C-alpha cells in the first residue's frame, strides 16, 4: 500500500504537471480538490481518470463516482487495490 501511494503521488505530479510539488508535499489523507489540499479542479479529475486507466487498467465512467473516489490519495489507492484485476 505504501508503495502504491508513493507511486500514485509521482504519477499525479507528472501527469498533472504540478511544477514545484514533490511527493512529500502531498498528504495522502488530505482532500485533493477544493480548499485545504493541493487544490485540483474538474479538469484534473478527468486527467486522473485517464491516469488510472493508463497505469492500472481501471475505467471510471461516472463523474459523480469519480468525485468520491478521488477525495484523497488514500481513497484512490484503496479503490485501485479493490478493483485492479
Amino acid at each position, binding site marked *: 500500500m505504501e508503495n502504491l501511494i508513493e507511486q500514485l503521488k509521482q504519477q499525479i505530479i507528472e501527469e498533472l504537471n504540478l511544477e514545484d510539488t514533490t511527493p512529500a508535499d502531498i498528504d495522502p489523507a488530505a482532500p485533493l480538490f477544493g480548499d485545504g489540499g493541493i487544490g485540483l479542479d*474538474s479538469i484534473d479529475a478527468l486527467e486522473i481518470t*485517464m491516469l488510472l486507466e493508463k497505469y492500472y487498467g481501471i475505467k471510471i*465512467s461516472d463523474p459523480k463516482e469519480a468525485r468520491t473516489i478521488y477525495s484523497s490519495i488514500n481513497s484512490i489507492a484503496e479503490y485501485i487495490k479493490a478493483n485492479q484485476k
Partner: protein
Amino acid sequence: MATKVTGIGIVSALGLNANDNWQALQDKRTGVGPLVRLQTVHKVPAGEIEQTNEELATMLGLDAKKTYSRTALLGMMAAREAIKDANLDLNGKRVGLISGTSVGGMDLSEQYFTDVHNGKRAHLRNLFEHDCGASTMRMADYLGIKDFMTTISTACSSSANAIMLADRMLRSKQLDAVVVGGTDPLCKFTINGFTSLMILDQEQCRPFDDTRNGLNLGEGAGFLVLERDETAEGKPAYCNLLGYANANDAYHQTATSANGEGPFLAMKGALEKAQLQPKDIDYINAHGTGTGNNDLSEATAIGRLFGEEVPPFSSTKVYTGHTLGACGGIEAAFCALMLKHDTIIPTFNFCNPMQELGMKPETDVRKNAGLKTVMSNSFGFGGNVSSLIFGK
C-alpha cells in the same frame, strides 16, 4: 440604419437546404442518430450528414478528386444557398465573407496523421487545409467573394461572433453586404475531445431536463446574408438584426459559472444594444446543449434577467446535435424562419424540470405565436458567450 437578413442557407443532419430543415423542425423530426459515415470506436448518437465529401463536392459542381475539407464543403453549400436566397449580386456591391469554425480542416488533418501512423503515403495537401482560415478561403474562392474575408474561432460561439463583426462592417460602410455564419464537421477530434471531458450523452440529449446527461454532437453550416437597409433596395427580408453582445464568463476554461454571469451579461448587453426591455423578447433559442453545467447555468442567467416573466424558450440542438462553431449561424437562420412563419419550434425529450429551477422549455410546435423579437444564445469554451436579437 438597420441590418437586414435578406437570405439564409442551412446544411445540417436535417437536410442540405433551409426548406428541408424547416420541414423537419415543424414535424419534430430529429437528425440525431447512430453514426454511420464517421468511423469511431465511440458509440454515441450524433447529428451526422450522410453524404461523403466526394458526394458533397459533386453536388457543388467541384472536382471530387481534389482535396476539400468537409468544413469548407458544408460552408460552401450553406453560403451558396444564402446568396441565392438573397438574390445577392456579387459584382455590384462590396461583399465580405465572415465565417466561424472551431476545427477548420480537421477531417483532413486526421487523414494525414492516420496515414503517417499506418506508414502510408501521407499527402501534405491534407495538412495545408488544417487552419481555420483555409476553409473560409476555399469558400470565398468558390463563391467569388474578394472584398473582405476573415474567420472567427471562439469554439461554440464562433458564428454568433461572426455576425457581430458583420454588422459593424456594414454600419461603418466598409461593406455593403456580408455572407456570414459558420461551419464545422463531425470528426474524431471533437468526438474524442468531448468524450475526454465526459460530456457526451450515450443517448439522445435532453436539454433542460433533470435527467440530462450531456450533449450530442452534430455537423453542418448556417449562413446569412446581411445587408444595410438602404442598399437592400426594398428586398424582402426575413428580419432585422437588432442587437448583440459578447461577454466573457471568466470562470473556467470549459465550464460556465453557477450564477451564469457571462450568459447574463451577454443577454443583457444584447438587449441594451437593441434598446429593448426583457419583456420585449418573445422567444429564446437557448444554447441548451444538454450538459448538466450549461443548461443550469443558462437557465439561471435567464431567470436572473427575465425574472417571473421568462419568455418561451427551447433548444434546437435536439434536432441537429451541437454543431459547435456552426451552431450560432444555424440557429440564427432557424430564428429567421421562426419569425417569418411566426412559429416556435420546441425542444423534446423533456420530462422533468431541473430540480434547482423548475423552468420548462417549450415542448409543442406553436403556430401563430405572435413572434416579433427573438433572442439566440451561443456559448463557447473559454467562457465565451454571445447573444443575438432578431426582430421584425
